[in-house]
């Protein structure tokens, strides 16, 4: 197999780290925007970035510790939460970032007007 393909497939942590660094930068910049411009858009973007980071960490860690014993011990509600929560966090995190970007962009246009 192509060595580049092998690196991408086997060293998945490398590319996950790129995404996590990007999301961390996004969250820090969003907090800074929220403090500097007093806009709620920055706060919303930071919340969205945190939700995406949480879901990413769960998806990376889940294969290592989620098994039948754990699912049995947390009961049916907990088990359904492990299924429902990661897609919810991924979708709502992305939605938070887009919504915050919209609010921030509108705020900038109002200031420049």
């Amino acid at each position: 197999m192509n060595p580049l393909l092998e690196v991408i497939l086997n060293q998945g942590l490398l590319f996950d780290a790129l995404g996590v660094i990007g999301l961390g930068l996004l969250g820090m910049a969003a907090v800074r925007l929220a403090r500097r411009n007093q806009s709620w858009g920055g706060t919303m973007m930071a919340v969205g970035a945190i939700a995406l980071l949480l879901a990413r960490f769960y998806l990376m860690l889940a294969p290592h510790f989620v098994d039948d014993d754990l699912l049995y011990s947390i009961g049916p509600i907990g088990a359904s939460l492990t299924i429902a929560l990661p897609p919810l966090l991924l979708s709502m995190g992305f939605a938070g970032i887009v919504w915050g970007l919209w609010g921030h962009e509108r705020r900038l246009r109002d200031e420049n007007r």
Partner: protein
Amino acid sequence: MNYISFLALDSHEAVRPVFLMVLGVVLTILTWRLARTSGVWTARFLVAGALLLGFGYAVMMPLFEAGVIERYVPGAQGQRGAATALAWHVVKIVVMNTGWLLFGTGIAMHAKSLDAPASRPCTQSPNLTHP
């Protein structure tokens, strides 16, 4: 049992791809409008990241969810179209992570998080586009 069905609403097979498609398109448009008022390299990072994310969320993820693109299963023997599934898997990893990296860097440059703090009095004229 109501809250469980409410939580399962988002993982419903039809709602989530449409939601992601709308969000991806909106993200691309908003970033385009934000980049028009930014500096050259900030705009390049923002637009590159938003285009990658827009492609990933609006085109590729719904195709994955719809089953048009087969999911890559590591170690599966005799999978039909294994090379295609592998290629799309690699494209997904690269596009999503590079997209977030570029977009996050662009937003950080937009918020001036990456600028070094001024160690001496600034002699240039103040930047009027970002008061």
